[in-house]
């Protein structure tokens, strides 16, 4: 396997400019800050805005609440269905993005020169399982009369979190190891996300749904184990050489 980390002329550190850095540091040392205080000033400004801030968005009103009856929805009455819908929407969005992340990873692994244990077949399997999980949650959302096409607040926040992962997976310059590290972040979060959702479904009295979700979690467990293993092997090979 080609090494993914190379030695080169990285210019970002100070050791490459021994004379200039001495000059920079000596001026900085004798030049006081332009105003007193410290980073707490930033916290204060943030606090002011937090106090005035509105929410990032809302959960849409389920159709059933507008008159359409469903047995599932009846179970949710008396609880707070919006919190549950928000988390279902979050999982749905994450699985959908997960398919796209695997698409990018498969492309990367198909083109990168390597002889690792990563199996493209397994990656395709994982990709398709993410897709099945998306469909599973889509149906779950429909079953309680909510709209699976709506973007919920938690889905939006998760999307912001995932932005960096997408940037890493689609950058032609990143190595397979870099991409696996990004996928590991995604799978760790995904794994916890499913556990949370299963717990919520049980507490909401949605036993059937929780059972379906358990199957998804078992598959997600496999994703996590494999990605973690491949990443570890690749880093060891790259660093230790065995």
């Amino acid at each position, binding site marked *: 396997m080609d090494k993914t980390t190379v030695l080169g002329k990285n210019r*970002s550190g100070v050791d*490459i400019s021994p004379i200039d850095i001495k000059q*920079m540091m000596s001026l900085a040392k004798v030049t006081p800050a332009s105003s007193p205080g410290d980073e707490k000033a930033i916290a204060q400004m943030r606090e002011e805005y937090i106090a005035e801030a509105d929410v990032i968005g809302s959960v849409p009103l389920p159709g059933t609440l507008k008159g359409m009856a469903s047995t599932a929805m009846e179970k949710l009455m008396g609880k707070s269905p919006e919190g549950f819908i928000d988390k279902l929407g979050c999982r749905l969005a994450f699985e959908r993005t997960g398919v796209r992340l695997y698409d990018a990873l498969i492309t990367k692994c198909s083109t990168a020169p390597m002889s690792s244990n990563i199996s493209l077949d397994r990656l395709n399997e994982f990709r398709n399982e993410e897709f099945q999980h998306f469909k599973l949650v889509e149906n779950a959302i429909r079953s309680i009369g909510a709209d699976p096409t709506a973007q919920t607040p938690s889905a939006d926040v998760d999307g912001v979190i995932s932005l960096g992962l997408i*940037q890493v997976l689609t*950058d032609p310059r990143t190595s397979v190891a870099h991409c696996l590290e990004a996928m590991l972040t995604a799978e760790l979060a995904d794994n916890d996300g499913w556990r949370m959702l299963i717990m919520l479904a049980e507490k909401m009295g949605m036993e059937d749904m929780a059972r379906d979700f358990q199957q998804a979690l078992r598959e997600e467990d496999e994703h996590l184990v494999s990605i973690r293993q491949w990443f570890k092997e690749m880093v060891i090979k790259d660093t230790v050489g065995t």
Partner: protein
Amino acid sequence: MALNLFEDKGCPLDRQRFTWKELVQPPISKLDDDAFTRVRVILMNGMEMEAIRFSHGCARMNREWQLPLAQLRIVEQHQATMINGLLGADHSTLETTIAYEQVAIEVTAAVAQNEPDEYLAQVYRFGMLEDFDHLYRYSAMLDRLEGKDANNILQCYTDIVPGRPTIVEHRAPQDNLREHYDRLRAAPITKLHALTIMSSEQQTQNFYLNVAPMYADPVVRQLYTEIASIEEQHVTQYESIIDPRETWLEKWLLHEANEVYNYYSCVQQETNPRIKAIWERCLDYELGHLQVAIEMFKQYERRDPAEVLPGDLPEPIKFESQREFVRRILNQEVDLRARGTQFVNKSQEGVESQQYRQHLNASGSPTNTVAAGYEWFAGTELARDGEATREKYVRGQKIAH
């Protein structure tokens, strides 16, 4: 050998073509490429954006030239795309911002030293010291928001200390206008300098306006808002030094010549061979654009382009650290303020500017907030605290021994 604007005709316009693949090329390395390669990328993106902006303005005012302008403009559009795409996506917006300020400082400092008109040289020095302060504020923000060292971008070429504090840079509009050069008497290099710096500052203003909403943090949004306001003043300052009596075609000619001059400067000094080839291609294309503008000028104005343009290009802009010059000017001119078109000591500043900024700063100054107590240290301010801890630890060990 210097390039001759009338003899070197470059690539004819009808042979200037791109594919999408050529327009989106591999970016430079944030880590491995020299900081001045990034400086050139940002500067030339600014030049191309100005070419497009000017071309649209000119087309909106002159029906008969709309076709040749459109023919040139689409090439400029594609050049801008190709160049701006050389910035890698691993630059955070704040890191790119640090690079924008490095462009403003280093290029303006180089221009200021080479400008034959003493008044205009003063204008450049004045603007440079303000951008120098912006670099310090953004560096504090990068450190305190993302935990990153601005020097990873600057590569020890540019100092990170306060300049003329941004909080006092806000002025009433009448104090942002300057005297313009005389189109009939000014040296050709004077006209090229003015266009270069004006274009670069305009690009910076647009960039800050566009990127502010990309940050979730209201502190960063306010920071960009405050500094974008100064960049607007800078654009106002630099466009006012350009003779407004120049005709549309004269300005067109100068725009094309200036692009040639800037690409020529890039070609001479580029250290990355792949990027150098891009500069060479663009230089060739711009010489072709200049030929079109020269023909238009002859046809419609019935004047000799040599009245406006030099034959041989002046010495290239120097892309290198201007540390000593910047420090000297910081030392001597940090307390200057603008009053009308002139520069005065801060004690003589006009009341209008003082009142103007008093209101703007009434609810605090973002540039002060982000840099409160900020002293740059290699590896971020956390590394400075870390060093103090380490020293204590080492001393403790020694005592224990």
